[in-house]
């Protein structure tokens, strides 16, 4: 810095020049234009930063690009599409609070971009300004996995967050989001991901095919553990690790076309019998759930599952061509929506008339969830990775 010297008059001159740059025009042309527009455009304020509404419209959704950013988009209107962006670096995960005006992004960075000191942390953002208003530094253990459900979850009515760790030993960091501090760590050997099945605690899927449920005290310490019988047939018909919740039941699709309901009643988690999403005929045609984020729910009775015909070993993450809608209570299909183009991730907005969001390649298609008609298509040029879609919570 010692070699660079600024003098006050120079700074003043730069500011003056920056504010006064204009393209000169001839007097005749200027007069003609002014005749049409007698009032000049008003001077505008500098600096100016746009802010967002305190409560987002429920036709907005966050798109996690699983790489460089988490983008807030208006998927319900044909005007402004991008409302804002949150920084993301590696396996970044977002939680959207519905009880505080805050957003939480769990992320990992290195001090020299791809090398140097690793830091894992949660950034607390203000929903209205998207300004970072707080930070919680985490143990450097976060699972660095393509962003997906189960890596970061609320529990205890959003007072706590759960961060899935993989080192490759599995554990969960328990975070107090209100006091913005780490409470502790719970080891879950042989199990992966966290699902908020109980009021304070979580369930996790284990490599042995079981579901382990862990209950926590207010201090984040374990107060109880229970493990189900094995039900997840990982070799031949594993559960997708994506789910959707309708009432007290969380539904996971399976690779071969079943759905696995898991019911929560207080601290009791029950693995209910699976039922099939496909008829014998559809099974013979190899119709199966597929895609990256393959299931969504409308919050009432309907399950939306992304489906693929002619599925085979190795195709379960490939895009699907249809979305099948099921009445979860009747365990029967109610609609079959053919997509304008194959999709990898699906979600439903929490609006009164839910919009079906389908990411396929560089497009986010927005459909009427009842009729299946395509309403609009948003461009995401250059998108190459897998997307997690998180519609903003309903009011």
């Amino acid at each position: 810095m010692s070699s660079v010297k600024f003098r006050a008059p120079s700074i003043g001159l730069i500011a003056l020049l920056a504010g006064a740059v204009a393209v000169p025009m001839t007097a005749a042309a200027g007069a003609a234009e002014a005749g049409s527009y007698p009032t000049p455009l008003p001077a505008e304020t500098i600096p100016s930063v746009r802010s967002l509404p305190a409560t987002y419209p429920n036709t907005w959704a966050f798109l996690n690009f699983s790489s460089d950013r988490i983008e807030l988009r208006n998927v319900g209107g044909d005007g402004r599409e991008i409302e804002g962006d949150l920084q993301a670096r590696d396996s970044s995960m977002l939680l959207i609070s519905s009880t505080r005006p805050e957003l939480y992004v769990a992320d990992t960075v290195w001090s020299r971009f791809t090398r140097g000191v690793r830091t894992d942390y949660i950034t607390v953002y203000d929903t209205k300004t998207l300004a970072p208003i707080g930070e919680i530094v985490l143990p450097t253990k976060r699972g660095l996995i393509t962003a997906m459900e189960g890596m970061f979850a609320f529990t205890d009515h959003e007072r706590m967050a759960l961060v899935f760790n993989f080192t490759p030993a599995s554990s969960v960091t328990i975070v107090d989001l209100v006091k913005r501090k780490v409470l502790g760590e719970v080891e879950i050997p042989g199990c992966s991901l966290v699902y908020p099945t109980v009021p304070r605690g979580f369930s996790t899927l284990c490599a042995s095919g079981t579901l382990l449920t862990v209950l926590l005290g207010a201090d984040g310490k374990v107060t109880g553990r229970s493990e189900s019988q094995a039900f997840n047939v990982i070799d031949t018909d594993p559960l997708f690790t994506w789910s959707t919740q309708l009432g007290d039941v969380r539904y996971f699709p399976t690779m071969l076309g079943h759905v696995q309901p898991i019911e929560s009643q207080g601290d009791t988690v029950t693995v209910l019998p699976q039922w099939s999403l496909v008829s014998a005929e559809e099974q013979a045609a190899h119709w199966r759930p597929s895609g990256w984020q393959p299931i969504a729910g409308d919050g009432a009775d309907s399950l939306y599952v992304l489906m693929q015909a002619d599925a085979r070993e190795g195709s379960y993450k490939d895009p699907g061509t249809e979305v099948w809608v099921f009445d979860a209570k009747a365990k029967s299909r109610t609609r079959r929506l053919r997509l304008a183009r194959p999709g990898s991730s699906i979600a439903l907005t929490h609006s009164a008339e839910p919009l079906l969001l389908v990411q396929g390649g560089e497009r986010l298609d927005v459909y009427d969830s009842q009729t299946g008609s395509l309403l609009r298509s948003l461009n995401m040029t250059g998108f190459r990775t897998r997307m997690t879609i998180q519609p903003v919570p309903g009011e």
Partner: protein
Amino acid sequence: MASLDRFAERVLRAFAGRTSRRSVFTLLGSALVGAATVPLLPVARGEDIEPNSADPKSGLQPPQTSGNPQDPGDQTRCDYWRYCAIDGSLCTCYGGTVSSCPPGTEMSPITWIGTCFNPADKRNYIISYNDCCGGVLWGRCNCQRNEGDRPVVRPSSNNEVTWCFGTQSQSYTCSTAVILGVATETK
């Protein structure tokens, strides 16, 4: 490392329990974990790679071949036979090779494995998809193939995990496809 050893032991035990041929494990070493997969003919899909051309005036990347007819195919393409269970960026596009990391990166000793069919000699090979870590973050030559891949609930056969463990940096760069040996028996 104690927890890592426990993990490796658990996965290896599970693997051994499912597989009658244990001889292959002498190749793996204690740090490598994985599961045999059902071999399929290589099929290109999930590819995000610009076309290749041998024409030096095309401006396109030339094919990279082994020169050995027993190891056929373009190692910068997703349909190369060793990439049957890969998900990531191909190191052959970053200054590495199919079996070595680019200069300036580190190879993770811990990884996931697959079993791929070599169309030339008709053998199934155990392929180790070692990730290279700490280098330039670019994202080119992305290739996603999931034969034998299982959800992350079984991490050793999941390719969504960044397998940069035991390296100074855990920042992902690209993936290799190293021959560990012949799979004399498959499921």
